[in-house]
């Protein structure tokens, strides 16, 4: 133990903590892959959740299939699948390959990795959004119906905004996970935070210092997110007079389908 500690190169650890341009780029890559995948995943989640409650059976089936497939296979597999899959679509090239998005060109692996993470996230967010929608009292929908909204309008204007408050804790968990899971895209050659660490130790072989430093960076990201989440919950819950004691129970407690009216 003493020798191990003695061997810990504190100055190298601190050097890894004070980022160079490469680390800044890697950090930024981690953040934007995570944010884009989360935003797209949440939108997919809303579609999956509302599709799963649709009055039309094909939509319900589709939503069920989606959740089944994307929750039922490893993310790592999905990432490699989309990477090589997009290689098939765009012509099989080696990794330094760009995708023209019109407004910018992006590394192909980043596109594939972000798509994979977003699609995977959609399946999980679908369940969280569904639970949030079910947790909103039927009376809220009925009050919208009786002033003359259709059920679809009631869902969009009345139920979803209230469900948004209820899904934030679950969404917060998911984004926290996303910040870390995004490290998996390193396997298809994206230089995000984890890949940058790999690059660093492959030249210095100082694994412990490098991993300790990158752990601090991940902690920094998740901590910032934690603070953002608290603000988000306060903002969305500003109409509530008292603190919510058990949001988890409200989110995961409801199991039945929504009542329908047409």
């Amino acid at each position, binding site marked *: 133990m003493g020798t191990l500690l003695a061997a810990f190169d504190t100055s190298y650890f601190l050097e890894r903590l004070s980022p160079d341009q490469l680390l800044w780029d890697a950090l930024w890559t981690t953040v934007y892959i995570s944010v884009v995948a989360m935003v797209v995943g949440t939108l997919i989640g809303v579609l999956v959740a509302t599709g799963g409650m649709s009055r039309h059976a094909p939509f319900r089936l589709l939503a069920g299939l989606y959740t089944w497939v994307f929750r039922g296979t490893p993310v790592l597999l999905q990432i490699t699948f989309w990477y090589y899959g997009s290689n098939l679509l765009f012509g099989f090239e080696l990794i330094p390959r760009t995708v023209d998005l019109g407004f910018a060109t992006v590394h192909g692996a980043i596109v594939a990795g972000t798509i994979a993470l977003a699609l995977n996230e959609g399946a999980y967010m679908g369940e969280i959004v569904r639970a949030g929608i079910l947790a909103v009292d039927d009376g809220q929908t009925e*009050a919208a119906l009786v002033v003359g909204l259709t059920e679809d309008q009631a869902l969009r204007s009345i139920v979803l905004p209230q469900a948004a408050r209820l899904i934030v804790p679950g969404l917060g968990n998911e984004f926290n996970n996303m910040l870390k899971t995004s490290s998996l895209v390193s396997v298809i050659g994206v230089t995000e935070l984890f890949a940058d660490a790999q690059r660093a130790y492959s030249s210095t072989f100082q694994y412990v210092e490098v991993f300790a430093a990158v752990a601090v960076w991940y902690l920094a990201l998740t901590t910032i997110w934690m603070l953002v989440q608290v603000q988000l919950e306060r903002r969305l819950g500003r109409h509530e007079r008292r603190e919510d004691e058990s949001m988890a129970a409200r989110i995961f407690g409801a199991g039945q389908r929504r009542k329908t009216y047409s």
Partner: protein
Amino acid sequence: MIDAAETTTTDAAAAVVDARDVYKRYGTVDVLKGVSLSVAPRETVCVIGPSGSGKTTLLRCLNRLETIDAGTIHIAGEQLATDRTGGLLHRRARQHLAAQRSQIGFVFQRFNLWPNRTVLDNVTFGPRRVRGTSREEAARVALELLERVGLEDKAAAYPMQLSGGQQQRVAIARALAMRPSLMLFDEPTSALDPETVGEVLDVMRGLAADGMTMIVVTHEMGFARQVADRVVVMDDGAIVEEGTPDQVFTTPTSDRAKEFLARVLAYGVSREA
């Protein structure tokens, strides 16, 4: 302020509500067994009866919050949208139903105010979203209505900051904001603390006096007696007695109505409306 119809005739063609032989079944339970009810413009009808007699279900059927299994319901001479293709309404029918509902105010036992919207937003939401009324005009009307229910100073409050009676008065203002030709009240005071019941009943009494057409499902016998033009007694999914408050409360004819009234009036007319 209230668009009450001019006419006071009671024939079916001019009726605001005309429900005929309405049947409703939940699973194996017959909740409504052929109920017919016609309500004339400017009329206030109170529906009373024991719990589980089908009062609330009947009221919800009139707004199609519940579908019916047989019979017809006309609101202002127009039939309520009916079931098509496997219990689902077509798109056009759904929109038509929404338009019909926008003419009918509905006040819930549990208020169902939208908790994430202020009192003012609760009242202006319908006119703005459904009628396309401008923000300013909707707010002007909303403030008038809030003043009418005695809550003009609560416009900026959120529902959770209000008492039950205040919330229910906001709910009434929210319904009135759509300028309905009919108001349905589903046990509007049953979820309230006794001391706030009166303030809600006062508002409703004022509406009735102004000529609003109203159907009130209630346990407030005093209110029914004083305010109703007609009292309907329901029991076991059917109307068992119907008449003026005097007829129903003093000389009921059916045994089941007598039984029910004997029970609820055992301690006199419970609350002054």
